């Protein structure tokens, strides 16, 4: 997927066909990204739709992303999610499960769902950039270089963010190795 030419296209003069390809290429992974953090398929769909809508508006105004389209789209999506929680969940309680998974999989046990909520809430309790690093590095399995591009930081700074994020998750999830 990382070799897809439309994402490497330079200079950034996208045709409409390019933009359709970008949508088809990236909307499934953006959805997964959003639903992991939001825990709600409808919200995740809203996030993806709004991400691409903002992307089109920026392209239309001549603000095409300079280097990395994928990183750019994930950044828009992450900002959307951050904004969403900024307005709705001021304080996240790690003990209680407030958010619900709206399309429950019957195969999943209740305790498993609770564990998912714990992980999601621990992630939401991280500072925005640390959360973004974990989402991109761990769940999306991006290399440091592309993660750094999505955050607008250097690779070294991204590594440091990841280090701190993992420390934060360890203490929040009581996952310190004895």
């Amino acid at each position, binding site marked *: 997927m990382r070799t897809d030419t439309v994402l490497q296209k330079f200079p950034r003069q996208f045709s409409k066909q390019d933009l359709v390809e970008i949508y088809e290429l990236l909307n499934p992974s953006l959805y997964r990204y959003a639903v992991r953090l939001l825990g709600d398929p409808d919200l995740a769909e809203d996030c993806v739709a709004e991400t691409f809508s903002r992307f089109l508006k920026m392209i239309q105004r001549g603000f095409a992303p300079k280097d990395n389209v994928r990183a750019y789209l994930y950044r828009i999506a992450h900002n959307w999610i951050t904004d969403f929680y900024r307005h709705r969940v001021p304080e996240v309680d790690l003990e209680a499960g407030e958010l619900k*998974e709206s399309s429950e999989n019957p195969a999943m046990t209740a305790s498993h769902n609770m564990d998912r909520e714990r992980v999601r809430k621990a992630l939401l309790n991280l500072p925005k950039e640390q959360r973004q690093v974990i989402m991109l590095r761990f769940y999306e399995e991006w290399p440091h270089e592309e993660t750094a591009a999505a955050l607008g930081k250097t690779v070294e700074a991204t590594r440091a963010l990841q280090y701190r994020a993992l420390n934060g998750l360890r203490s929040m999830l009581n996952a310190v190795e004895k």
Partner: protein
Amino acid sequence: MKENNQQEPIEPRLVEILDQLRPVHKRDPIVAEQNQQKFLAELESINLPSVPKPLFERLVIGMGLKQGYYSIMEKMNMLTKKSRIALTIATAFIVVFTVLFGGSAMTVLAAQSAIPGDALYPVKTTLEQTRFSLARNAALRAELQLEFADLRLDEIELLIAQGRTQNLQAATQAFEAHIQNALAEIEVISGVNPALAADLMEEITGLFSDFSDTLGLLLNDIPEPLRSEVERNIRIIRGESEDDNGNEGAVDNQNGNLNDNTNDDLDDNTNDDLDDNTNADLDDNTNDDLDDNTNDDLDDNTNDDLDDNTNDDLDDNTNDDLDEVNDNTNDDMDDVNDNTNTNQNANTNDNSNENDNRNDNDD
């Protein structure tokens, strides 16, 4: 984390916990399809720009000052890189003042009353100030300023809705100040992170649009001599073209030096006026080069200049970011590793060393 596992091993227990969030429910194909149709419809409705323009050019042209912009860029082609950077920043300020002080008819209107707002309002602004002073980097500061500008807009709308025009002055001035502060931070960010700067500019564009809408709401309450002036300001903010004969009313409402320049520029929309402003504000050596420039290769040079500037800034500023980040890392590490910092020398390398040591500890 396949590619870099050997550098940052995560203990299996934490991986196991985090992995619980990895599976994702199957996506509803109907909703996904609806979203795709929505995207295609929106795509169909837009016109794609032929060539992406540099950030600063888009900003200026978006504000309806295209002619003046080309006049300035033409003259920038002959300057040294350093003075071009200075000129870019100085020109940005001219544009910002041009746009912001163009809205001062609102301020004049609101200045007719001096009654302060709610008793708790100073508390709110003091809290905002405190938040701002705690923001550690330009991106946070810019976002905060935009957030505050957004709040001022909400307040302006409420004041209008409640007919409390006596309190409008402070709110409009505060809005203008927040936008100015945000633009100053974005100037810094655009060197380090053009993509983030573009995001923030998108927010500013939205705020300007809201501001012009809000001004539009006021129109009905404004007596006729001022109304046409406010309408003109709305057109400026919206980037619509200017009438040539709109001078008089505007000049009457301005007094300081910046305001005078502003009016001249906008009303006439000619190169001469912008040149005057540029010369007045800049170093002598900038003026010397101005007259010799030609129109040739304008676009190419513009792109090259801006890109170069961006790259130059990038290295320096990146180090600043790294310092902040890695300082924290060091703090964590000090307990464990006494010889962490023995081989520090230059900015970038320092940071690398610290990270290496950190990773050793992880292992």
